[in-house]
């Protein structure tokens, strides 16, 4: 049973919550949601998940609590949560933009707005999911810093004592900040992706170790859960199309 690119992405997202313990997993978007639910069903059984509205639900949909949006913000401040957000732009230290592209005063493209990105990044571990790894996303400088990156966090002193960025999962591989100055590093490649391809699709100098491992292969039981339980309609394949990217 060969895993698709989308399924590797699900696994790579799931790994963000390995060892997280009894906290809230807050995945934004389909692939991170599949990852969080897969983690909950396998190696991270203590995770809590929401239904996207105000309920905490078990994987079968059984309610196990209430979490209104307001309570959710309080929980963020309390730190017992790991969120995986999207990013329209992301720089080498993990500063993230979901607000607008271009000059903020009169943007070329208005996007969502800052949402809770700064609250998230200053208070609980934060990871990112990037469905299309490109120079438009991985940029030298983001137009509006919403999520706070490591360089800016370093300047905040005690205010940033809960700041931690986990991983960045893209359709090409996994990146992290495990370098002395927390500059983004290529941590693993999805099958069929070469280092040159990632460099080419990244708008800043990426730290690349001599040996870059492959992204962990899904176990047969994990594949079964993804295909039969979590996403039987195959929506993941539309979110991350299978293609040879070299």
């Amino acid at each position, binding site marked *: 049973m060969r895993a698709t690119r989308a399924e590797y992405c699900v696994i790579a997202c799931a790994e963000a919550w390995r060892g997280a313990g009894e906290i809230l997993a807050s995945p934004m978007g389909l692939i991170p949601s599949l990852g969080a639910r897969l983690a909950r069903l396998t190696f991270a059984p203590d995770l809590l998940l929401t239904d996207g*509205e*105000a*309920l905490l639900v078990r994987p079968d949909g059984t309610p196990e609590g*209430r979490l*209104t*949006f*307001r309570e959710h*913000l309080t929980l*963020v*401040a309390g730190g017992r949560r790991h969120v995986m957000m999207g990013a329209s732009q992301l720089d080498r230290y993990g500063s993230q933009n979901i*607000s*607008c592209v271009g000059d*903020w*005063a*009169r*943007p*070329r*493209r*208005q*996007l*969502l*707005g*800052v*949402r*809770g*990105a*700064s*609250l998230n*990044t*200053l*208070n609980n571990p934060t990871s990112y999911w990037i469905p299309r790894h490109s120079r438009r996303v991985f940029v030298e400088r983001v137009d*509006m*810093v*919403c*999520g*706070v990156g490591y360089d*800016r*966090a370093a*300047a*905040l*002193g*005690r*205010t*940033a004592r*809960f700041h931690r960025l986990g991983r960045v999962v893209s359709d090409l591989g996994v990146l992290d900040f495990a370098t002395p100055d927390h500059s983004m590093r290529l941590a693993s490649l999805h099958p069929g992706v070469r280092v040159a391809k990632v460099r080419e699709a990244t708008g800043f100098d990426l730290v690349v170790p001599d040996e870059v491992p492959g992204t962990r292969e899904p176990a047969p039981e994990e594949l079964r859960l993804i295909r039969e339980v979590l996403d039987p309609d195959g929506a993941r394949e539309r979110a991350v199309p299978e293609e040879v990217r070299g």
Partner: protein
Amino acid sequence: MGDKTMTAEEVVGRLESGMTLGIGGWGARRKPMALVRALLRSGLRDLTVVSCGGPDVGMLAAAGRLRRLVTAFVTLDSIPLEPHYRAVRERGGLELAEVDEGMLLRGLEAAAHRLPFLPVRAGVGSDVMRVNPGLRTVTSPYEDGETLVAMPALRLDAALVHVHRADRLGTGQCLGPDPYFDDLFCAAADTAYVSCERIVDTAELTEKAPVESLLLRRLAVTGVVEAPNGAHFTSCAPDYERDEEFQRLYAKTPWPEFAGRFLGADEGGYRAAVAEWRKEEGR
């Protein structure tokens, strides 16, 4: 005890151009759309709106009624970006105070507590500080010495919210899973106007629903409007879900055309126009 029932037109008649309004709901969820539609029919302008933004913001912005918006986001949820709001922003058509969700919450809480500000660990380190040059930080006076954002109170002239049931005296009941910031908007405002799906007797409110569902106390409510389907096309679960087909129409139709077809007449006219559209579409 006074009967506070009034019409949406009467609510709007009590508002003035230049006011600061808080609008309840969240994105395209339980927005007081009947009150927003009444606002759109009025001549009110130069409004400052505080909102977890959805089509309320999209419509008021597109109609040129907003001078200033205080928000963390504007979205239609199932359609991530609000197209009419985007268009206004991209032509520089309104003043924006873009703050983090956590800051918006603390600003409303500060207003509800009649405090000048409340500290929050959000915003610092981000460009929220750059685009809101008036924002100030505060340093903890205790040993930790942490620097936090001093989020100023978001005091409102009026709040507009939509709930499921209310009595004539202003007790508001939320039967859905999430009150959003609705009660806070009311507490942060000098006056609060509540539209509801149905006005019922006080005793009926808790006949089948727990007392915890009574979200709004009458002491914080100025006026009550019975507005069946008053959140349309946003969701008002469990009474009704979001009208996704109509929302798609809203999102893809140029604003003047949408406004001309659906927002020209009163609320009855709106309902008739939506019914007519549905018939044409064979839905």
